[in-house]
């Protein structure tokens, strides 16, 4: 049904998808997995025409569709959902789906479109009331709407992008069943991208694993879960024991630095965190692990004040910071290295570091801090006049951490420092984290790369679907079945 060969996509110098080939057979459900930034969404975007491939061929039902305009591909029988639901809020639920029913099938009659909309809505279990507003839908409802829109285009092949993120357990199971039903009842072939492995592994016929834009494994779910390369990607290989004992020693008798109690937070109607409790003591390194979409980044944003929690308290050295604006939280000694580094690409390394020292108190110590950062990362000194955007990923991560350290923080928040980096570089980044630790700074680090992170932290929390599921020392966490299940679904 679908035959992809030699698919490549480059963005500037960055290769997001590198020479991927695969095929999907009629009536199959193919699971597509891989860590963040491994190229899953990019492949979806090429299959659906949102992006044109740099090279390679995509044969769908015998026709070459690579590079066609999206509406032609959709009309040709491929439907897709988006990772983050993108409903049309100015239209009612019914109109959203009817729109897809009308245009998605090459614009036949309106009556037929409405018929298709009713069928699709019934299929996913949304009301077929014509006037119901999108605004009333919660996270699960939006995901359903996304699916209904794709179904209304009467696809032969459905590209389902992370249909489960942000749902609770019951909703997840329901959604997984729905995908199965779609295949069984409508005979629609499905490619499914998902991070929640447990559910995915139960439903799919075959799994394909991507890492850094390349296919590293393919096969039956059970086989893939046991594939050492896959385990390496998700959990790391050298399972050497951590410095648990040292950590334990360090932990004792330290004053409390950061204290979260009953924190709830989200975006609009979407709740991302549920009653999160978390402690970080002075001098400690604490990790937060969990699959994509579990709420890790939201947690970081809540601490640094970018998002106001809807409930709960956050105390930094005993001071409640819930009502403090983000730019003032920095002066309390919290520095946040955001996900994907977020450097100012068109500024030099020097200027980026300068921004880190923008605060009044920090400006006075600008030169001293620069020394400290350059001591820690000599590479940055060499690159100081280079545009930040032109450096390698590892160097950029150095720069991002260096920028955060310019404000002379007490607590460093690191959000996925390894995301999107090559394995060798990931190694280097964790070396950096170790060095920072050694300098005595308190660190809270969020990571998908369980193995690596557990090597550098004293303690860790496992977060899943916005809730803390487990916590313990690094060694305890590594041995935990809960962690394994969360990652590999076994």
């Amino acid at each position, binding site marked *: 049904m679908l035959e992809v060969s030699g698919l490549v996509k480059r*963005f500037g110098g960055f290769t*997001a998808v590198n020479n991927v080939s695969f095929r999907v057979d009629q009536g199959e459900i193919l699971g597509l997995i891989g860590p*963040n*930034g491994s190229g899953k*969404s*990019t492949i979806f975007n090429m299959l*659906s*025409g*949102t992006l044109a491939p740099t090279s390679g061929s995509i044969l769908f039902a015998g026709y070459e569709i690579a590079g066609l*305009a*999206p*509406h032609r591909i*959709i*009309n040709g029988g491929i439907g*897709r959902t*988006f*990772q*983050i639901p*993108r409903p*049309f*809020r*100015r*239209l*009612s639920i019914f*109109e*959203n789906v*009817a*729109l*897809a029913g*009308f*245009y*998605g*099938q*090459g*614009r036949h009659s*309106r009556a037929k*479109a409405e018929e298709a909309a009713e069928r699709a809505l019934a299929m996913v279990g949304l009301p077929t009331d014509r*006037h119901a*507003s999108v*605004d009333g839908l919660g996270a699960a409802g939006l995901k359903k709407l996304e699916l209904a*829109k*794709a179904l209304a*285009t009467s696809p032969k092949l459905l590209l389902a992008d992370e249909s489960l993120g942000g749902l609770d357990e019951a909703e997840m199971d329901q959604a997984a069943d729905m995908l199965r039903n779609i295949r069984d009842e409508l005979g629609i072939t499905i490619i499914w991208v998902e991070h929640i492995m447990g559910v995915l592994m139960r439903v799919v016929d075959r799994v394909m694993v991507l890492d850094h834009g390349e296919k590293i494994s393919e096969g039956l779910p059970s086989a893939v879960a046991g594939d050492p390369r896959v385990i390496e990607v998700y959990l790391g290989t050298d399972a050497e024991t951590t410095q648990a004992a040292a950590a334990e020693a360090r932990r004792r008798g330290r004053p409390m630095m950061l204290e979260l109690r009953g924190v709830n937070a989200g975006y609009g109607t979407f709740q991302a965190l549920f009653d999160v409790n978390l402690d970080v003591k002075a001098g400690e390194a604490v990790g937060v692990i969990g699959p994509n979409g579990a709420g890790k980044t939201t947690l970081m944003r809540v601490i640094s004040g970018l998002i106001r929690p809807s409930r709960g308290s956050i105390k930094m050295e005993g001071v409640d910071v819930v009502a403090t604006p983000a730019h003032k939280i920095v002066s309390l000694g919290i520095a946040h290295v955001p996900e*994907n580094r977020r450097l100012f690409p068109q500024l030099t390394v020097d200027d980026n570091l300068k921004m880190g020292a923008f605060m009044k108190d920090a400006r006075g110590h600008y030169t001293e801090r620069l020394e400290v950062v350059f001591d820690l990362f000599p590479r940055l000194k060499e690159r100081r006049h280079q545009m930040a955007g032109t450096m390698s990923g590892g160097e950029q991560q150095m720069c991002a951490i260096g920028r955060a350290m310019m404000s002379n923080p007490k607590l460093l928040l690191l959000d996925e420092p390894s995301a999107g980096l090559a394995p060798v570089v990931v190694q280097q980044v964790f070396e950096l984290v170790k060095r920072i630790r050694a300098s005595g700074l308190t660190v809270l680090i969020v990571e998908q790369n369980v193995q690596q992170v557990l090597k550098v932290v004293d303690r860790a929390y496992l977060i899943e679907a916005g809730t803390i599921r487990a916590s313990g020392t690094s060694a305890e966490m590594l041995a935990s079945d809960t962690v394994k299940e969360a990652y590999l679904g076994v």
Partner: protein
Amino acid sequence: MTGQGRLAAWGIGLAALVALPFVYRDPYHLHILVLILIWSFAYTSWSMMGRFGLVSLGHGGFMGIGAYVTALLWNHLGLSPWIGIPISMAAAGALAMIVGYPCFRFRITGHYFVLVTLALSGIVLQVITATRDYTGGSLGYTPNRATGNKLLALQFDDKITWYLIALAVWLFGIVVWHWVDRSMARYALEAISEDEDAAAAAGVDVTAEKLKITLLSALMTALAGAIYCQYQMFITPDTVSGIAVSLQMVFAAIVGGLFVSLGPTVGAIITILLAETLRIGFGTKAVGWDNLVYGVLLVLFIIFLPKGILGSLLDRLKPQRKVSRAHEQEAVQIARPGA
């Protein structure tokens, strides 16, 4: 209101409007009414695309083409406006396609789209001025008085005829508005205005849909220009083309309310009456005050009543609308995490 009740209300309103000039004959007030109707039609034409986030400042250009091409064909070739108007509309439509296609193809949106269309109005204005040997330049242009058949020349001396013509044209605009509002094209355009990628993923040919509404809007605007010319029998580059006219359309549509069919009409009534009463009210005693008030009102409207007078009023009257439109003025989210 039920569908039937609504239809009845429209019917009664229309009958009253048609009957009006036969009952009330004050010529100056009729003159103002005719102007309001013609401009309402122009503003409605603009809002056809404006309501979908396609803010064009090029409509001054389309209007200018409608007026000038019609008048030029009449004066130089003796072509009746009955033929000249379709030709002028086609010319405006062609221009809209020439500029619109690359704009939509290359996804020029937001500020950039506004500024490209702004340049378009500028071009039309300057071309009219530069070809002064034919168009009379900035001094303006008068269609020749018909010597023969007035109907053929579309020139009438009495206000009632013009009032009825303007009413018909205006009604045509409202009907087209409703026709688009009920069509699938509206769904597609609303979707496009929110999220082009997602709309494409639902199978919508984004470029084609945008082009279609732009074409429709440009054709109607050109018609408005031609009618204005035939009524006033005098046009200048500044009154029917250029950036000022484009801005006037945008402002009036916003003041009245972009998202309801009668919004632009309400906008025309308010802006024209405001301008007239302020000018007459202040008269020669305090020159410049009328525009000052006008400007302050515009700023206040955009800040406090972005949905316009009629839009806000309807919201107030009908708190439970079928689809909440509270988000209509929210910025469309541009940044999306992770590519």
